[in-house]
């Protein structure tokens, strides 16, 4: 069963740029050979960590998004754990979340479309004459108090 995952991991800040690129490329090829499809690779660059990890206060964040089955993810996690470059990693399964979000969005769009379809039709019909009425009899319509005072 293929699922969509997100893998966010922190690479040591003292690793060279090309070293990180090489490692990322290596992971990507490993994933594809294992039968996964890599949808997205994002490098966030160096940023400060919220707390100290080992002796490091900052790290390079790398984000992978891929579709794979559970055993591939297990293998990837093992590799990340073994690697000297990686400080921390987090795997999140996101297909259910994406599905939920899509559903919500669809509902929202539908509701908006329905509102858009409903609102102009009844509103436009009476709105036009009422404005015309207001224009024709401006002193009476907007202020109910005024005619009483005059009378």
């Amino acid at each position, binding site marked *: 069963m293929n699922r969509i995952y997100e893998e966010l991991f*922190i690479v040591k800040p003292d690793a060279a740029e090309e070293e990180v690129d090489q490692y990322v490329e290596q992971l990507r090829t490993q994933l594809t050979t294992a039968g996964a499809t890599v949808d997205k690779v994002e490098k966030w660059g160096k940023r400060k*960590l919220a707390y100290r990890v080992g002796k490091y206060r900052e790290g390079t964040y790398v984000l992978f998004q891929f579709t794979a089955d559970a055993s591939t993810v297990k293998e990837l996690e093992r590799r990340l754990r073994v690697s000297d470059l990686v400080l*921390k990693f*987090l795997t*999140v399964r996101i297909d259910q979340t994406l599905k939920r979000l899509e559903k919500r969005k669809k509902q929202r769009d539908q509701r908006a479309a329905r509102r858009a379809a409903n609102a102009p039709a009844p509103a436009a019909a009476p709105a036009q004459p009422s404005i015309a009425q207001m224009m024709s009899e401006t002193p009476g319509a907007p202020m109910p108090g005024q005619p009483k005072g005059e009378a």
Partner: protein
Amino acid sequence: MAETRGGRPISASQRPTGGDKAVAGQKKQYFRRKKVCRFCVEKIDDINYKDVKMLHAFVAERGKIVPRRISGVCAPHQRRLTDAIKKARNIALLPFAASY
């Protein structure tokens, strides 16, 4: 309002319904604005752990998650929010406990 001046408790049948504190015969009157869930109002469906800027608004100075009664977030959204904050903590985007 006048009959509550004496400071004596009024019978349950006369008591105003709901938590209307302004009428309850107290000296001070508190006007509390009704809190609304930010995620409901702004229609944010996705509470993502990677959105550190947004999560920061729901974390107290020491790194604690702000309770619902203070932030006004609705229960379903608070549940997702706590999940996101805890994930962000795990990957060092947010602190477990901020130090001074």
